[in-house]
C-alpha cells in the first residue's frame, strides 16, 4: 500500500453522535432550527446555564441548511465595535472549541486576506485594520508584495482591470469543517440530555396574552416556557406566525467547490471589489462563494450567471485556477438585514427570542452567538455583546452599518 494522499484522511467522527428521541409534550426551552446556531445555543444553555430541558426542532436533517452550505470562513476583522465584539468573542471560542467539544472541528488558522483594489478600498482597509487593533483584533495592512508573500498565487500584476493595491490580513482567521462543528455541538447537547428532534417542522407559534407558550409541529403540539428562533432564512416565516414583522429579506447565496487539488492556496482570500472569496479546504478542494442573487427566494438555488461572474473574477485574481473544475454548486438562503448586521435578542412577544439577519456572516459567529443567545434566553435579557443588535435599532436609527464603506460583505 502506498502512502495516502495528503489531506485525504480527515479525523473520524465519534462512534456515537446523537439520539433520535420522540418529542416530549413540553420543554422549558424549545429552539426552532437545528443548524449551527440552534445547536450551539443548546450546548451553551446546558453548559453555561444548566438548562437542559430543551428541545432543538429541525424540520429536515440536522445542520442541513446554511450550516451545510457555507464556505466555513471564520474571522473577526469587522469595522464597527459592536461587530468586532461579537465576532471576536466567537473567534476566541473557536480557538478552544476542539477541546470544549472534544471533537476535532479542524479549525485551521491560516489567516484571511481582504484585498483592496482602489484607493478608497485602501482607505477603508486601513481604517478597519486600525479599528481592529484598538478592539484587540489581530490585523495588518499589507502592500501588494506582502500580499503575494502570504498567498503566492494571487496575481498582483498591474495589468489586471482592478489591480491588487494591498490587503488586510488577519492571521488568526481561518476555516473549519462545518459538519464537525455542528455535530460537535449536537453531540454535546445530546449528551447533556437535550432532545434533538429531526424532521419536525414548526407550523405555528402559540401566543397567549402576548406570551409564547408553545409550538405546533407536524409531530403535534409541544408546550414551551421559552421559544428561541434559530432558523436563518426562514425566520420571517416563523416570526409571522407570532405576528412579528422583521426587517429581513431572504436571498439565495451560492457557493461551489472544485475537485481535490494539491495544495496551492495557503490562506483565505476575499475581495469585495471583484466579488471573490476562496480558500482551499482540508482535503484540497477549492471552496468559493459567489454573490447573492438579487431577488427574494426560498428555493435554495440561484441563477447561473452569478457563478459565471464569480469565475471570471476568480481567474482575474488567480490565473492558476484556469483548468480547475467546478465539481459542485449549491445555494443556501440567507436572511439579510438593512445594515448587514444580525438581530439577536428579545422580541415583541414575551419569552420568544430572535436570532436572525446574519446574512452571510452566520457560520463564523456560531459559538459566539450560541453563547450570547443562551444568555439572552436564560436571563430574558440580552448579553452585553448582543445588546446593540436589538430589533429597535431600526426605529432609533442606531444601526451597525456593516454595509458602510469599510465593511466586507461576506
Amino acid at each position, binding site marked *: 500500500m502506498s502512502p495516502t494522499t495528503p489531506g485525504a484522511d480527515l479525523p473520524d467522527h465519534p462512534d456515537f453522535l446523537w439520539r433520535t428521541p420522540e418529542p416530549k409534550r413540553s420543554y422549558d426551552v424549545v429552539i426552532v432550527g437545528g443548524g449551527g446556531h440552534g445547536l450551539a445555543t443548546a450546548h451553551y444553555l446546558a453548559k453555561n446555564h444548566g438548562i437542559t430541558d430543551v428541545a432543538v426542532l429541525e424540520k429536515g436533517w440536522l445542520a442541513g441548511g446554511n450550516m451545510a452550505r457555507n464556505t466555513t470562513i471564520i474571522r473577526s476583522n469587522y469595522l464597527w465595535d459592536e461587530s468586532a465584539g461579537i465576532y471576536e468573542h466567537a473567534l476566541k471560542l473557536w480557538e478552544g472549541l476542539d477541546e470544549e467539544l472534544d471533537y476535532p472541528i479542524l479549525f485551521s488558522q491560516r489567516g484571511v486576506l481582504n484585498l483592496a483594489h482602489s484607493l478608497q478600498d485602501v482607505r477603508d482597509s486601513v481604517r478597519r485594520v486600525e479599528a481592529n487593533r484598538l478592539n484587540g483584533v489581530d490585523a495588518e495592512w499589507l502592500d501588494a508584495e506582502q500580499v503575494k508573500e502570504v498567498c503566492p498565487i494571487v496575481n498582483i500584476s498591474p495589468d489586471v482591470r482592478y489591480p491588487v493595491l494591498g490587503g488586510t490580513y488577519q492571521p488568526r482567521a481561518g476555516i473549519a469543517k462545518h459538519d464537525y462543528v455542528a455535530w460537535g455541538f449536537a453531540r454535546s447537547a445530546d449528551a447533556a440530555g437535550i432532545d434533538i428532534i429531526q424532521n419536525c417542522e414548526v407550523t405555528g407559534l402559540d401566543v397567549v396574552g402576548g406570551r409564547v407558550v408553545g409550538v405546533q409541529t407536524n409531530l403535534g403540539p409541544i408546550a414551551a416556557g421559552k421559544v428561541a428562533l434559530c432558523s436563518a432564512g426562514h425566520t420571517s416565516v416563523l416570526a409571522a406566525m407570532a405576528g412579528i414583522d422583521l426587517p429581513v429579506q431572504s436571498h439565495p447565496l451560492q457557493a461551489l467547490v472544485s475537485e481535490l*487539488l494539491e495544495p496551492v492556496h495557503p490562506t483565505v482570500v476575499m475581495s469585495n471589489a471583484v466579488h471573490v472569496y476562496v480558500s482551499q479546504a482540508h482535503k484540497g478542494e477549492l471552496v468559493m462563494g459567489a454573490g447573492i442573487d438579487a431577488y427574494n427566494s426560498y428555493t435554495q438555488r440561484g441563477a447561473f450567471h452569478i457563478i459565471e461572474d464569480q469565475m471570471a473574477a476568480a481567474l*482575474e485574481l488567480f490565473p492558476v485556477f484556469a483548468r480547475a473544475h467546478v465539481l459542485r454548486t449549491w445555494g443556501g438562503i440567507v436572511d439579510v438585514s438593512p445594515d448587514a448586521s444580525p438581530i439577536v435578542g428579545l422580541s415583541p412577544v414575551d419569552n420568544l427570542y430572535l436570532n436572525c439577519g446574519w446574512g452571510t456572516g452566520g457560520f463564523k459567529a456560531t459559538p459566539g452567538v450560541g453563547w450570547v443567545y443562551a444568555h439572552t434566553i436564560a436571563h430574558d435579557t440580552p448579553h452585553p455583546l448582543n445588546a446593540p443588535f436589538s430589533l429597535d435599532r431600526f426605529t432609533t436609527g442606531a444601526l451597525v452599518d456593516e454595509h458602510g464603506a469599510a465593511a466586507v460583505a461576506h
Partner: protein
Amino acid sequence: MLLISCPWCGPRDEAEFHYGGQAHVAYPQDPSALTDEEWAKYLFFRDNPKGPFAERWTHSAGCRRWFNAVRDTSTNEILAVYRTGEARPATVEPRPTTPASPAATLEPRSANPARPAFEDEAPSGPNGGLGAEPPATSTATGLRLATGGRINRAEPLTFTFDGTEYQGFRGDTLASALLANGVIAAATSIKLGRPRGIFSAGVEEPNAVIQIEEPFPEPMLPATTVELYDGLVATSLPGQGRLATRPDPARYDAVHAHCDLLIVGAGPAGLAAAAAAASSGARVILADDRPELGGSLLGTGELPGWADELGARLESAPEVRVLRRTTVFGYYDDNHLLAVERRTNHLGAAAPANMSRERVHRIRARRVVLATGAHERSLAFADNDRPGIMLAASARTHLHRHGVLPGRHAVVFTTNDSAYAAALDLAAAGVRIAAIVDTRPAPGEWADRARAAGIEVLAGYAVTGTEGEARLTAVSVAPYGETAAQREFAADLLLVSGGWNPVAHLFSQAGGKLRYDEALGTFVPDVVRQAVEVAGSANGTFDLAAVLAQGAAAGARAIEAEGYTPDAPALPAVPAQPQGTPPMQVFTVPGREGAPRFVDLQRDVTVDDLARATGAGMRSVEHTKRYTTAGTANDQGKTSGVLASGVVADLLGVDICALGTTTFRPPYTPVSFAALAGRDRGVLSDPVRTTALHGWHVEHGALFENVGQWKRPWYYPQDGEDMDTAVLRECAATRESVGFMDASTLGKIDVQGPDAGVFLDLLYTNMMSTLKVGMIRYGVMCKPDGMVFDDGTVIRLAPDRFLVTTTTGNAATVLDWMEEWLQTEWPELKVHCTSVTEQWATVALVGPKSRDVLASLAPQLAVSNDDFPFMAWRETTVAGIEARVCRISFSGELAYEINVSPWEALALWEAVYEAGAPYGITPYGTETMHVLRAEKGYPIIGQDTDGTITPHDLGMSWAVSKKKPDFIGKRSFARADTVRPDRKHLVGLLPEDPGTFLPEGTQLVADSELPAPPVPMLGHVTSSYRSAALGRTFALALVKGGRDRIGERLYAPVGDRLVPVTVAGPVLYDPEGARRDG
C-alpha cells in the same frame, strides 16, 4: 436565470433587469406626521413571504421602465407581470406539475422492464438486445481486435502514461487505449492506497481519474472521457490533481442559444425525438457529450449505421443544430440550461490557437426532452475494488466502440438481464467467460441463451471474494447469502451489474421529483413543473423499441405544444430478444469475512464505514454521506449514490424509498473554471471608460486612477517626480497661477419638464425650484434614512430644464434613483431624465489667472466678477468652440468649468493649454483636486462619508432646507440616533508636528496612553495630505462631537506611536473665501 416578461418588451433574461423589492409600498403622505416606529416600518420593514410575492423590477438594460411582478418565492415562478400603478392581480395560478413522461401515467410501468412501455408503440422484443455481429475474434496483437469498433486504425497515435509510451488510434479514449495495451490499473485509491482499475467507459468513472501533463496540465479527468490524441502525456493520480503553474494560453467563450426544443442526449431516445422534430420547422438543438451520435448504441453495437445515417439527416435539416462533445451540465429556472462544448481538447497540440478551447452555451429552450440514459451501478461485495473489476456494459462498450477486449478470462456477476448481452458479445469476440453468477434463482431465457453459447450460469449465486494485487486473478463464488466461497475461477476480468440508475441529474436540477420504482429497483423521474419530458432509459425504460418510440413521442409532443407539426419518423426495427426476467434488488452482498466491500471506490468508503455511521445515530443519507464522505468525490456518486442509499437502507432495516438519494447539484460533470469565466477577463472583465482627452493624458505621462469604470488622470509626474512632489507642484501652480483638469467624468443628467423643479426639491435636501435660470446651486441628496448619498451642482438651463451633475462613480445610480422615484412614486410629475455624461466634455480651469486665460479665449464673454458672478453660467464660444461655461469652484480659487461637445474637447484643451502657457498653466489630476478641495473642507462623498453620515454631520445644515415640507431623508433627521449630540462631525485635523503625515484610515483616541483593548475610538481620518498652501500636513476626519472639540488635542495611533493632533474647523485655507472671486 429567470425569464422575465417585461410588460413593454416581452420575455427577457433576468440579467437585463434589476430587482426592486416589495411592490405597493407607498411613500408616506406626510412623513413628519409619523411616529419613529411608523417611519422605521417604511424605511426598513418589507414583507418576506414564502410564496406569492408582489415585487418590483426595472428593465435596466432594456426600456428602463419599472413594473411589478407576482413571483412565488418558493419556486421562483413568475405568476403575473403588470405595470406600475396597476393593482396586483387577484388570483394567479402556479404552473401545475406534469409527469416526467405523460405516457408513463397512462399505464403503470410493467413489473418487467422488458415489456413495451405503452400500448401505442410498436411491439418489440425485450431488453438489451444482442448487438451487431460482434467483431470477430482477432488474430491481432494483444487485446486490440483486428476489425470492428469505431476507431480509425489508419491513424495511430502515440501517447505516454505514467512514463511509458504506448500506441492507440484516433477514436480511442485514453482508457480504451490503455486497455488495448493491457493496462487496466490507472489509479491509486485516495485513503487506502489500493491499486484501482478502469471501471467504466464513460463519465461515471470512479477510478481512472487522471492528470493530463502535456500539452497543458489539467487535473482530474476520467480517462474514459479523454479522447486520445498524439502526444498526450498523462499520469495516474491518488485522487488529487495538480494545477498548472504557468498561465493557460487557451481561449474560452460563451454563446447564447434559443430553441423550441432542446434534446439532451443523442442515444436512441434522443435521436428518435430529434427525428420526430427535424423537418417541422421547429428550432431544435440536439446535444451529446460524446464525439459521435448514438449514445448507448455505440456501446451495444445495436442498430448499426442508424445513428450515423440519422445524424447526417439532422445535420442537413436547416433548423436543427447538432452539438457534439457538448455536455448539458445545468438545468435552471425557466428552462435555462447550460452546456459546455469541448471544441479543441481532442486535438491536443494541434488545436488551432484562434479557436476557443471550450465554449459555454447558455440555452433558453421552450421545451426540453431529457434523453440522458442510465448508469450501471455496482454491488457491495467483498474485495470489489481490484483492477479488472468493471461494469458489465462498460466492457461491452470498450469492445464495440474501441475494438478492445478489457481482459481474456472473465466472470460476470449480475442481478439483472443486461449483463448477459455483454457476456455474449464479449464471448463472441474471444473473451472466455468462465461463469455468469446471477443472484436470481431463475434468470430465465437470457440464461438459457448464455448456456446455449456454452457459458456456465450459476443461478442464485453471488461473488464472495476476489484475489489479485496489481490485477484480478481469481473470483470466488457461493450461493447468494453465504459467505464462504464454494468455487473459485481464475479470471482477469470481473464484470458487474447491480442494475441501472436513470441519469436523473438534470431532471432533479429542474425541480423534478423522483420516485422509487420497485420493479426496476431504482429511482426514476416522477413529476416536474418545467416544460420538460424524460425519455428512454433516463425514464426507466430499457427496452430498445420502447425507448425509440418513447423518444419519438416526446419529441413530437414537445414541438406540437409549440405549434409545429411533427414527423412520424420511420424507426428502425429492433430484432426480437429473449423474454426478460425482472431484476433483483441487491445492494450488500455477503462474502468473505473481513474483506472490504466498497460502496464509493473514489472515496474508499465501505459498507463497514456506512455501518459505523448508522451506528453513530445517522438516519439520513445526507448524514451518512457526510459522516463517510461517500458520494463527494469527482464522480459525485454516479455509480455509488443509489448503492449507498441501498446499503444504508439495508443497515437501518428500512425501505430504500424512505431514504431517497442525496441531492443532485449542478454541474452534471465537472466544468473548467476557465470555460465559465469565458472572455470576461482582463480588460473585458469590466468596461473601461475613458474621456475624449484620454490620449492627451497618456501622452503627457499621466498616471491613472480607477474611479468606477473610468480611468481618470491621477497626477502628471515630471522628470521622475514621485506623487508627493508632483502633487505639491500641481497644487502650488494652481493656487498661485492657473491649473486645469479633465472633469468630464462627472455624471451629468438632463432633467426636463414642467415639474422638474418640484422633482428636484424632493430629491435634494436644499431648494432647487427657486434657482434662477442662468444660475447654479450646489446640492446634497440623501437616502430616506437621511444619510448622504450623492452631491453635485445643479444648473438651471430654463424654467423647465435643469442639468444635474453627480459624482463620477454614482452617475448611473443617481439616474436610476431618479427614475425609480419618478416611475414608482410620483408618476404624476411631468419630468424626463436623460444621461448626458458622455455628451459633454468638461475642462476645469482653476486659479487666480483662470479669468485671464478664459478671457483670452472667449472674447465675447464678459468675464468680470459683476458680469459673470460666482455660481452663474454662460453660453459662449471658447477658442471658437460653442461652450457652456460655469463659474463654480471645487478648490476655493477663482475657477470655471468649460463644457463642450466631446468632439471638440481636444481642441479646447489644447487651446487652453496654449493660452495658459504664459501663466505656466499646469494640468493636474484627481490627487491635486482632492488636496485643493480638502484645504477648503469640501467633502468627497464616499471618502469623507460612509453611508452613516448626514448633511448635518458634514456641517452642511446650510444645505438642508427648513422651508420645504418634505424631501427624501428629512424625516430621518428627527430620529433618536440622528439628533445625538455626539454624532461624528467632519472636522479638520492638524498634526502637532507639521511634518507628520497621518495615513488615511487612522483612528483617533482621547488619551495619550492606550488602555487595554477594546480602546474607545472617537473617529478616523478620512482624507490626509501634504499642503503646499499651508506648508504642512493636514487631514479631514470624522470625530464624535467634533465641532465641539475644535482646539482639543487628540491622539492618532500610527504604527507604534500616538501622534498628537489638534482638532480644527474643516476649512483650513482661505476661510473667508476671498480667493473665489479672483
